[in-house]
């Protein structure tokens, strides 16, 4: 009787151990493969396409100022990623100055970073400020800051 109980216990243990070993194997096929096309690696070569109101120039300066870990290239063929976007500045009108007492401009900008090999958008960001203290400089630095966060996150 004692032997039968021991054998039963042993069998249950064996089944449990084998089940535990099989679990990682079963989970493997269902695991999603991370999409590396949406990851911007540190040191990636980036081309900044021309944007309205020369926003690309501001963005280039901001990338340097914020120490974004990318290499900006002048030739699109040499780049791994391309930054395109749109920017809009609305200077303070007389009414805004008189009624609201604000001389600051309204800034709006939006950028996207495209992986040129896969044509997928790896990063996108938009910015809007009703009273921008430093105009396009503020909006471009905000874009650069968030781009840096994306690269450093490694996702």
């Amino acid at each position: 009787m004692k032997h039968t109980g021991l054998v039963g216990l042993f069998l249950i243990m064996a089944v449990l151990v084998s089940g535990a070993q099989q679990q990682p194997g079963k989970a493997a096929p269902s695991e999603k493969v991370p999409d590396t096309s949406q990851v911007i690696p540190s040191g990636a070569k980036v081309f900044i396409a021309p944007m309205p109101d020369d926003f690309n120039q501001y963005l280039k300066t901001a990338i340097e100022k914020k120490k974004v870990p990318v290499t900006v290239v002048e030739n699109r063929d040499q780049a791994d990623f391309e930054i395109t976007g749109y920017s809009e500045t609305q200077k303070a009108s007389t009414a805004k100055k008189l009624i609201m007492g604000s001389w600051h401009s309204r800034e709006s900008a939006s950028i996207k970073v495209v992986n040129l090999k896969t044509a997928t958008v790896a990063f996108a960001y938009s910015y809007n400020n009703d009273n921008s203290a430093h105009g396009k400089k503020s909006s471009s630095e905000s874009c650069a800051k968030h781009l840096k966060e994306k690269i450093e996150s490694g996702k």
Partner: protein
Amino acid sequence: MRKAVLAFVAFCALSAWAQQPESPAEKKSPEQTDASSQKSPGSDENLVASEPNTLISAQKIPFGARVYVAPMPNGFDNYVIAGIQKKKVPVVIVADRSKAEFEVTGIAETDKAGWAKMLFLGSQQTNESASVKMVNLKTGAVVFAYSVNKVNSVRGKQSAGEACAKHMKEKIVD
């Protein structure tokens, strides 16, 4: 007397028969008429008529679908893409239309605050209006459409782009 009754019954039957072809058409609502006239063969179960002259495909957008956002006025496409990323819409945005399964097109308009608005309402915020639609490039069916109108938009086009993305996310299934 009997003849008169028979004649009356026959007259009633004839008049009822004469009115029959017209009555079903009269009963039909405008929605039903439009839907039936525009239905394409083989796609009946995928189409829903929500308004007169409007057919939106009931098919869902699959998780991880490849979406191309076409250029829109005032760079609104960039704001929509940024909104899609911010709202974590589970799609892959591609910059090449040939690699996409779906295409997003649309229009956006910004109405800046005038002096009267600033003076009387004390608001310098813009009015934003945008409308987008998503088309399945294989079937040509419109799978999603949404329009947004924001009076006193706090963040301008950014708000409108994010609103579009938020509602797009609701349409997507796992």
